[in-house]
């Protein structure tokens, strides 16, 4: 045990000494973040695995938390190969409707139930049984079932859903409403990978109003699509490569509506762990007033 600690802390001391020595060198020493970046990119993780952090808060002005989140991560590795598998969902139940919290809770549980059922024979059967549906069909099916359950369990209510299924190198996102998915790439670029189903976003896309007008538009909370609303529900299902050494952030509008994309990016890149990053995001939204429920999930695939 002592050896183990010596190894750990001894090494740290050595590193500190090196930094001290380097003061005499003309070139500027690399910052810890820069070193970390080099370390991460040169390291190869065996097996490939998913790491995740979550954050949630009722906010500063509401009494009820109508947001729900679900994070499910699994690693199976051995001679038969390894495929990281994870399912992450953010659902924002709708205020102004009854049972918003019932709707978001029913949505995340139903979707997870549907998806995991489909994957069960693949993950746990001997021998492993291939899926007979495509990833997008599985996600589409799960959303439809969640729609049925929400209509039955919480009629008149509604919820947004942004669900990300990570399998191997790909992430498949099913999305309804105005929660968001962001990808943050290794080079620091950040991209919204979902499309808000909101009136103001649509007006903005069509060039009727500007982004700054959208941020203060009186109807900025109005969605045109949500789970539990309407007879037919069309969700956006897309698949894209998971950014290498990058991140996927899922969050409700209680976060992205209050904290700028740039700030979210900075928090993600600067926090020591994903859990801390999520806590810092929630704190930032609460500091900005916290008018709505706040939910964030931050995911990274190490490979």
């Amino acid at each position, binding site marked *: 045990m002592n050896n183990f600690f010596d190894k750990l802390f001894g090494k740290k001391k050595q590193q500190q000494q090196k930094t001290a020595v380097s003061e005499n060198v003309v070139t500027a020493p690399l910052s810890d973040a820069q070193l970390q970046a080099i370390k991460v990119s040169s390291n190869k993780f065996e097996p490939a695995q998913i790491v995740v952090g979550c954050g949630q808060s009722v906010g500063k002005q509401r009494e009820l938390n109508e947001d729900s989140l679900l994070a499910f991560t699994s690693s199976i590795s051995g001679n038969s190969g390894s*495929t990281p598998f994870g399912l992450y969902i953010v659902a*924002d139940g*709708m*205020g*102004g*409707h009854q049972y*918003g919290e019932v709707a978001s809770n029913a949505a995340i549980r139903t979707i997870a139930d549907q998806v995991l059922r489909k994957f069960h024979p693949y993950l746990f059967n001997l021998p492993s049984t*291939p*899926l007979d*549906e*495509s*990833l*997008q*069909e599985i996600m589409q099916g799960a959303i439809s079932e969640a729609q049925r359950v929400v209509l039955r369990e919480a009629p008149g209510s*509604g919820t*947004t859903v942004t669900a990300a299924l990570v*399998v*191997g*190198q*790909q992430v*498949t996102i099913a999305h309804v*409403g*105005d929660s968001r998915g962001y990808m943050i790439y290794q080079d620091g670029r950040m991209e919204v990978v979902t499309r808000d*189903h909101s*009136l103001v976003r*649509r*007006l903005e896309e*069509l060039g*009727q*109003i500007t982004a700054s007008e959208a941020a203060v538009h*009186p*109807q900025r*909370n*109005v*969605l*045109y*699509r*949500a789970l539990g*609303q*309407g007879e*037919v529900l069309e969700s*956006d*299902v*897309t*698949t*894209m*490569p998971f950014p290498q050494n990058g991140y996927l952030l899922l969050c409700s*509008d209680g976060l992205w509506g209050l904290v700028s994309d740039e700030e979210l990016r900075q928090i993600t890149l600067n926090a020591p762990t994903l859990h801390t990053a999520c806590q810092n995001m929630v704190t930032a939204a609460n500091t900005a007033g916290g*008018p*709505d429920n706040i939910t964030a999930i931050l995911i990274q695939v190490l490979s």
Partner: protein
Amino acid sequence: MTGGTTLVDRYTIQEVIGVGGMGSVYRARDLHFPNVVKLVAVKEMINQAPDPLIRATIVQNFEREANILATLSHPSIPRIYDYFSEDNRSYLVLEFVNGRDLEQVINDTPGFLSEEQVLAWAIQLCDVLSFLHAHKPDPIVFRDMKPSNVMVNQANHIILVDFGIAKPFQTGQKGTMIGTEGYSPPEQYRGEATTLADVYALGATIHHALTRRDPRIEPPFSFSERPVRKINPAVSLELETVINSALQYNSKDRFPTIEAMRDALIGAGRKTGLLGRVPTQVSQVLTAQTGTIKPIWAFQCEDEVRSTPLFFNGSIYVGCYDNNLYALNATNGEFQWKYATDGGIVSKPAVFDGNIFFGSEDHRLHVVSARSGKVLWTYFADDHIRSSPRISENHAFFGSDDKYLHAVNLGTGRLSWRFAAAAEVRSSPFVVDELVYFGCESGDFYAVNFRGEMKWRFSAKRGITSSPCVQDNVVYFTSMDSYLYALDAKTGWSIWRFKMEKGSVVSPSFAEGIVFCGSADGNIYGIDSRSAKELWRFKTDHQVSGSPIVYKDSIYCGSVDGNLYCLEYRTGRLRWKYETKGPIMGSAMVYDDIVYVGSADHFVYALLS
């Protein structure tokens, strides 16, 4: 209010017949007619504004508009009998319309409403809107045309209700809400409402009535993404055109007046014969640009050209069913040499190190000098070679009808390994990141590493003749089971599949997030690679078996109907087509703005793109 309540000693409430933003609408009995049952509609507005000044303004507005309405006399506008205020509530007493609103009618009708019926209502709605717009001194803009504001009475006549007197005043709701106005034009969200807003909203109302697709749950201003006839093909092109004009995004692109829209509706009705028998004009048929494309040159072979040409170093190399591989001068089509095999050539040649590689029906892979056409070596498979060779890591990879994928060493001309597939391999392999991807006629699809070991396998329901393409770690191919598949290239997980109307042997291609393919159903498709959504389709007159080729912002694709089509790849719009005298079964090749393509009419063509 509950049933039995009597207002101002005159109107006895019977039941609620509608709920609005600021109160309800009731059916009531007018007690001034004790000997008969006279029914009226009583519309209530609850004034909840806390500020007494605002409250007074709301009441004034209510009374002013009631006064305007009282002067309007039209069969499609309910008569107003009375209005009064009590405490914080104002009431309007109107003619009771015995019927259902159009939204209920749409929802209660199994299937679609008939075009004839919708057209008749639409013309009546134009009449009443036209009456309002002609109001003096100021035109009255209805502002809220939608199915729930249109009543259809017992005589099947329409009556416009809800003149915006009791419109909800926004009270700044917090939190996420569902629902948009859906029928309103974009400019109305900036506070502009002109008579052209009514034109748009009427277009939206007709669209909803004909398609049953409620615009309040669709993306706002997305009517152009769901043309009426795509949902309800029974509707005439004429009526769809009128609806499209009314729904133009920019108000100046719509009908300039509601009267113009009415005339267009009547015109559409006459053309389709739904409004009496009036001589019809021959509708203008749009013809694509044809005949303007002239070949730079054409070279005649002795049999059908099904192979795809290859460009290398100023020459075109193309195989033919007459057993020859031809080398032609790419600039003028001059014959350079031909090399005879003992069977037809359907595969696309590959080039490596100044040599041309191609398979033949004679079971052999031939390697000849690009310059002279002299044979260097040949390699024997045990059956026809229809798969095109791919060169990588000093090996030629190709399939054969002998059910193997062959990996032949280019240095020795000998087999390094072969991989046993479940059936004939006619698909051309795709090689990337040390994996070889190909399908076979049993429907199995394989990823094999450079040692000939299977990495993964996927099964389609029918044969895979299509050659895969890999982009961003996703492999795309089609199958005779009529699906276009997208699989994760590392694991073989199916990401999505897209159903076409018939089976396909077409090899997909890719550009800017769009996957292009075609099928025996005669269509060329553009599919979004992330969402598997069909972005466009282009109908040819026969099967599509050759692959769409991307060049600049166009794709080039032949069809068995004999045409080579050039389509704008983002929209699928036809740029031009060139008609050959036989089916085109292979793919085109574009180099330096010149398109090279072979046809079953025995010719190889060079066309200026």
